């Protein structure tokens, strides 16, 4: 019985996914992220990264509490981070303001990015290349929804 229920549920999900065809059968052309034949050579859409000034960019929704926040503002003036220069830290290294984000002000890096304490407090070197975890974002529409839900 349980087995049958699962079957019905998954059929329902599949029907939604392929509603364009109107029945349960789908052409390969309407599967996947591109929804074209594999023999086609489609023209990819152009995209641009967010070009908002940090002061007005706000923050993007976070996937869950410890997920790395993504970059809401323009980065062309700040990247790349190199061994001599890290423009990200100029704004986000604010150990006195951890957990105290204010509208229109930089998001202070979390405590996990520092080591030591008091006057020895410093940014951990293995966190130095910000873009390993924090990626600039475009406004591109998602290709397919994601049903992940963070716990309430």
């Amino acid at each position: 019985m349980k087995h049958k229920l699962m079957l019905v549920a998954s059929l329902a999900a599949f029907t939604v996914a392929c509603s364009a065809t109107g029945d349960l059968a789908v052409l390969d052309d309407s599967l996947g992220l591109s929804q074209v034949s594999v023999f086609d050579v489609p023209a990819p859409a152009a995209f641009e990264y967010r070009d908002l000034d940090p002061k007005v960019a706000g923050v993007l929704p976070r996937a869950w509490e410890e997920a790395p926040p993504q970059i809401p503002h323009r980065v062309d003036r700040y990247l790349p981070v190199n061994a001599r220069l890290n423009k990200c830290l100029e704004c986000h290294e604010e150990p006195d303001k951890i957990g105290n984000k204010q509208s229109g002000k930089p998001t202070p890096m979390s405590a996990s990015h520092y080591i030591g304490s008091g006057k020895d407090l410093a940014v951990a070197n293995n966190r130095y290349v910000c873009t390993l975890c924090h990626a600039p974002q475009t406004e591109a529409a998602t290709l397919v929804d994601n049903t992940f839900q963070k716990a309430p």
Partner: protein
Amino acid sequence: MDGTRRDFLKSGVAAATAATVGMPLSREAAAQARAAEQGWQWDKSVCRFCGTGCGIMVATKDGRVVATKGDPKAPVNRGLNCVKGYFNGKIMYGKDRLTQPLMRMTNGKFDKKGKFVPVSWEQAFDEMERQFRRVYAEKGPTGVAMLASAQKTIQEGYAFNKLFKAGWRSNNIDPNARNCMASAVAAFYSVFGTDEPAGNYDDIEYTDTMVLWGANMAEMHPILWSRITDRRLGHKDCRIVNLTTYRNMSSDIADLEIIFKPQTDLAIQNYIAREIIARNAVNKDFVDKHCVFVTGPYDIGYGMRPTDKYAFPAEKDIQAKELRVRLDRDEAIAQRRKEGELVEQKNTGNPGAHWQISFEDFKRAVEPYTLDFVAAMSKGDVDEPLDQYKAKLKQLADYYIDANRKVVSFWTMGFNQSVRGTWVNEQCYMNHLLLGKQSQPGNGAFSLTGQPSACGTAREVGMFCHRLPSDRLIPNPVHREYTEKQWGLPARTLNPHIGSFYGKILRDLEDGGVKWLWVAANNPFQSHPNINHWLKAARELDNFIVVSEAYPGVSAKVADLILPAAMIFEKWGSYGNAERRTQHWRQSVQPPGLARGDMWQAMEFAKRFKIKEFWGEQKVPGLKVAGYEDGKLPSVLDEAVKLGYSPEDSLYKVLFATPGNLKVKWPDAVAKGRDNHIANQLGDGWFPEKAIWQEYVAFGRGVGKDLADFDVYHGDDVRGLKWPVVNGKETPWRFNEQYDPYVKKGAGFEFYGKLFKAIPTGDLDKVTDPKPVSVAGKAKIFFRPYAAPVEMPDANYDLMFCTGRVLEHWHTGTMTRRVPELHRAVPAAVMWMHPDDAKKRGLKRNDLAWLESRRGKIQIRVETGGRNTMPRGTVYAAFFDEGVLVNKICTDAACPISKESDYKKSAVKVYKV
């Protein structure tokens, strides 16, 4: 922040021992308490993506993953993840997740030209079985094949390997790892006689010099890059060299960037060797005691078909080079030949043959690789002054040779994916061995891997068409006999004829040699080069293609039957990373709908077949091995009966649910309350992942590949173990007496690998005495010459095209493109190009362009800025985007020794749409 400030920054590594990368213990405890209140359950697990093998923690609630984070106790990543790694929690929840088998049907029956219709597992397996029997009856073991994966778990790899080789007596199972690290393996075998690296990731903190050879670690191994960055910023004498064909993110932290011309790394390595000798810096004691000098033939072809029957018209000129090659000026100097000489490729049949030579011969061979010669031919940026480039090469040699410096060389696809991939791997060991800077903390040539279990599943299990578990080989009768005994098989059950490698399976599909193909946990119809051939073969020829997948990617779209697969946290499993660390995880959540793990798929399908169908006489075209009738596998059924089997026994019973394995019961206390959907579905009360693990580890014990027992890896405090694990102890550095229990006492170093350790003797051109001489215990220092890429830009195809990955996406993007944060970070593949090259073609940033090679063309957007800076003449695009199928462009020429495809060098033209 300026440079002086950096010196005051503290090392995150030091902190990791006290806390978790800076997070105060009190805060972590608070976070744990909060999670407990929320009713979250945390499981230790492993990242699904690259070969670094970061530990992660997976939080579940009400049967769903609600969060993941870097595992603070994991020695690999110490609590950190890269942006992909952080989003492991979302990869299972794309809305178009496959939850039911889909088969192409018309009017309720299978039809290759039909539409996909949801079917039950029973219906799916019925058709899969019917097609299997049809093909097996027509073509025997060589007509069926599997394109397997280094993303399968170790147990899945072992099960499929056994099903194919022991059950169906077919060696046509080969992983996508073939395109990832086969060249590395070939060199591990030829140089050391055993696979996988000597060192481990702690080399990063022990060394003061790190040289990246065509490995953009900042994007491809981000967590190792964070450790390298940590070392660089916290240690002022540390130096990082980035050898690359274009400027990339790794250059941002590097001290020295060397932009070289594609494939001239072969010449640069020989320049360093020449310098080592010229500066009298050979570590004579080390070399005399532990090394021999060798070389092999140069005329080995390019891993293409010997015929142009299947080539597109435009491909024929390149394909002809498989038979004969006209040497260009640089090759002529590098190979001591004449420019323009036409060289018949006589050694395509045995390209890996090699023989011992004298040091004097070796010295003579590297003599042409002077700074003047190598600098002029290898400079990759036409706009860089030659003198500046020369100074850089000299600096590179200085770093290697400096007696006060420890050196680690890192590489992955830049070396491996080359028509001379094995050679350049061997050359890297050449220099480390000449200097005696190998197999010591902070000193060594370190081959990285790209996939999460290239080492664990593909290499250690031997899930290749020529391998058996733990460094054993199909052509070796002793290895086959051992494996037959371990598997309880009658003698001569195993097929002694090497099967088809990954690319050849696709070529077989095109020429009708393979007609039944199972693809699992990889996406060959997007990821293998030159896909216009394989897409057409899949859809237009008489064959049956099964694809086990989580999402409808390109390979699923060209399949005849799609099987819904369980993903990583939905099953028990284990992966082996690039530092020999084996890590296991438990099932955290149930797979959705009817999705099932690959292990169940293999075993359930095996229930449908009896041994009498396969263990009778079988035809194997081309089989010619002592002790076997030509073209035939003998019947072993009488012998099977003597061993107590009935001809009616199912492959499931004989291969998997053996009396020994059935004793390993499910449920098991090691589960700590976690479920196992595969044990439940099989329903006969055994614990397949544990039983198969214990069966597998017997292969490695006592031969330097020792793995620990299943339950050990599941211990609360264990975060993977680096094999060989001997008497419960890991081995941090292999071949070094101080760290490796396999090295003879008093030897200091011993390169004890057993493969290819009896070789003939000769000079630079040929074997002079064919009698094999033992070189047991020694490593081989190869002379390998520079050879030009098989395809060079010309007047028509005037640019060199290179492909690879980007930080934010994994492989073909089937998982990461369904994570909104990762998709928005890089929504589509773009083509990086020098602004002058763009301007010359009337193009600017974001314009749509045609990218065309001899093999096909695609549309792509131009990028002239961002993270990569191309030299004039070279373009780059990643292969993750199914909307921009760059593998329609790439050549499927390959290293003739390793059979690994050359993704890095295809001649193209670019023009405005």
